């Protein structure tokens, strides 16, 4: 019985067979010529046959898809046998270039042309590159890139998943996600939690498992075992029963002794908000507004923004909705706002800081929020990301006042904000801890890097201490201003107990995690949570902090969390 240890990022115990995500298609070498003995006519005919095969495969997939996915697949299928693309490639082949290199270059130039047109066309530029990679895969006789299609559900194993891969992930077909790379804050982890799929990341060696191998995945413990034994089969069956119980949140987060900890949802738009309201979220603790802006070449109008914001407000009448102003930069670049040539984007002009270099965008966003709030019944709070100083907090508060927004706040993601929380909270009404970035900055460890996964966990005592300091800063300020958590940490039931013990007032997470967090929170009193928080702070390492707390929460093992 072979076991691969990794980092568990989304709970669940499941047995299934492995399907490997195909490796990305490598670029055919520049200048690659037709192989000796192959004529240009033969190479062109081969390319056309490969293109037709890709077209037929995409067309067949479009027929079983629905909605937006269907339309995209239909358009992509047409691109595969597009005369413009194939004629350009044929011209290169006639000059002696190999078929693979020819389609690669033809795809690149068409994609660039679309990209330069901007708007909708620019969004389709990546589809051309996807089609090109599929045709090259077909020519090479290797599996097409992307998530494998299969008739029976499987455990998807990959080096790491990109946001584009996860968009095509069908939760009906995928039982669990396992990656050899990636960290606890990687896209794989985030998408797994939002879909409620068990997931383990940074499990070195799993990419060597053969397709069809039967494995047991434990998303809480963070392990993958080949040839599961009877105990593991029983655990997977028990999880199947528990999972349905853990799917329902009653809508009132509290400890065993009735200390209220409202459990809120992180959402990216109106659709998410409606889904979160359906799962009984007590409000929205993080509305990521950049989703209205991403893949745009120009800034959306105030009216357009207001309509997008209102769709979220309308899902939560009478409830709290905390909106985060535009958080562009680093891994979320925007052509009209951020500079793609920064040598160190995570430490660059991102979040609130884009107002230094492109003033006006934030001001107009605040106007749009005020406009949307006027016609809605939600209790709207607004916070700025990446605030580092009390001076910035004061400036943001004055901008909110000017726009007619009454409840400004800040995100605490930069360690300096946690350390000076008292003076920052004199300027604004609340703080919300973004633990993903706070961890990345406190530990100086890039969120996406697998080798740094052990540094990059909010269980690090240093990160917990910064959370504690933010709460203390609020108490010292004297008005009991709320300090919430809206990072991925809040979705970990054991960590949610520790955060409650540290004095955090609300927890906001992906809506799928609400029920599990509520189930564990109601088994401890506030005093017990405070004890567990002290214990975690005293631990010499993240591993021990987590182990010590989990040991004292037997409910986690019972529920398989």
């Amino acid at each position: 019985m072979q076991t691969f240890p990794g980092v568990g990022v989304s709970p669940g115990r499941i047995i299934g067979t492995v399907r490997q995500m195909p490796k990305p298609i490598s670029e055919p070498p520049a200048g690659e010529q037709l192989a000796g003995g192959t004529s240009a006519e033969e190479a062109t005919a081969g390319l056309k046959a490969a293109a037709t095969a890709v077209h037929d495969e995409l067309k067949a997939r479009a027929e079983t898809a629905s909605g937006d996915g269907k339309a995209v697949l239909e358009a992509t299928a047409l691109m595969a046998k597009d005369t413009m693309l194939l004629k350009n490639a044929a011209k290169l082949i006639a000059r002696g270039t190999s078929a693979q290199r020819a389609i690669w270059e033809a795809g690149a130039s068409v994609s660039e042309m679309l990209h330069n047109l901007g708007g909708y066309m620019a969004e389709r530029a990546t589809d051309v590159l996807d089609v090109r990679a599929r045709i090259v895969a077909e020519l090479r006789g290797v599996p097409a890139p992307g998530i494998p299609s299969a008739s029976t559900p499987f455990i998807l194993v990959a080096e790491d998943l990109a946001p584009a891969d996860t968009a095509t992930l069908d939760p009906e077909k995928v039982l669990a996600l396992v990656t050899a790379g990636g960290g606890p804050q990687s896209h794989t982890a985030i998408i797994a939690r939002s879909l409620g799929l068990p997931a383990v990341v940074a499990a070195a060696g799993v990419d060597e498992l053969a397709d069809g191998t039967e494995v047991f995945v434990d998303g809480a413990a963070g392990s993958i075992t080949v040839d599961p034994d009877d105990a593991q089969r029983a655990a997977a069956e028990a999880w199947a029963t528990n999972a349905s119980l853990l799917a329902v949140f009653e809508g009132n987060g509290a400890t065993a002794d009735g200390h209220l900890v409202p459990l809120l949802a992180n959402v990216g738009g109106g659709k998410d908000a409606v889904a979160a309201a359906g799962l009984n979220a007590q409000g929205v603790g993080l509305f990521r507004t950049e989703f209205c802006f991403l893949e745009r070449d120009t800034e959306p109008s105030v009216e357009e923004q207001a309509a997008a914001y209102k769709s979220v407000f309308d899902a939560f009448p009478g409830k709290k909705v905390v909106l985060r102003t535009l958080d562009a930069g680093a891994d979320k670049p925007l052509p009209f706002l951020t500079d793609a040539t920064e040598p160190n984007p995570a430490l660059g002009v991102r979040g609130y800081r884009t107002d230094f270099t492109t003033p006006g965008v934030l001001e107009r966003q605040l106007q749009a929020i005020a406009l949307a709030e006027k016609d809605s019944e939600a209790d709207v709070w607004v916070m700025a990301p990446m605030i580092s100083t009390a001076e910035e907090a004061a400036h943001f508060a004055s901008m909110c006042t000017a726009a007619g927004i009454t409840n400004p706040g800040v995100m605490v993601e930069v360690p300096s904000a946690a350390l000076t929380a008292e003076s920052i909270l004199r300027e604004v009404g609340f703080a919300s801890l973004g633990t993903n970035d706070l961890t990345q900055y406190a530990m100086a460890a890039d969120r996406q890097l697998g080798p740094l996964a052990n540094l990059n966990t909010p269980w690090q005592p240093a990160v917990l201490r910064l959370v504690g300091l933010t709460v203390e800063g609020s108490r010292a300020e004297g008005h009991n201003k709320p300090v919430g958590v809206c990072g991925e940490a809040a979705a970990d039931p054991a960590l949610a107990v520790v955060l409650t013990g540290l004095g955090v007032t609300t927890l906001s997470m992906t809506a799928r995690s609400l029920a599990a967090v509520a189930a564990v929170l109601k088994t401890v009193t506030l005093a017990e949570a405070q004890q567990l928080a002290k214990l975690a702070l005293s631990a010499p390492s993240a591993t021990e902090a987590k182990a010590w707390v989990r040991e004292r929460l037997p409910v986690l093992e019972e529920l398989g969390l």
Partner: protein
Amino acid sequence: MPERIATIASRSGLHARPAALFAEAAGDVGVEVTIAMQGDPEDDALDASSILSLMTLGAAKGDVVVLRAEGDGADAALDSLVKLLETDLDAE
């Protein structure tokens, strides 16, 4: 050479789904059909069955385009394609 003019009726212009539907129809008519913006030289006309060409043409709602085709059935083919362009395909 037979030619027709048509005004784009789809709200999103000749992009996205309307472009896909039109390219597919143009590929099925049995004759080679070209498309150009009204006023552009005939030499710059693009293959109407190429979705990528249609996208680079960038025709928006209300823009006028010229369709051209030659050979047997050219007139009937052009008539059916004009009808398609002058329907709001986003509404379907």
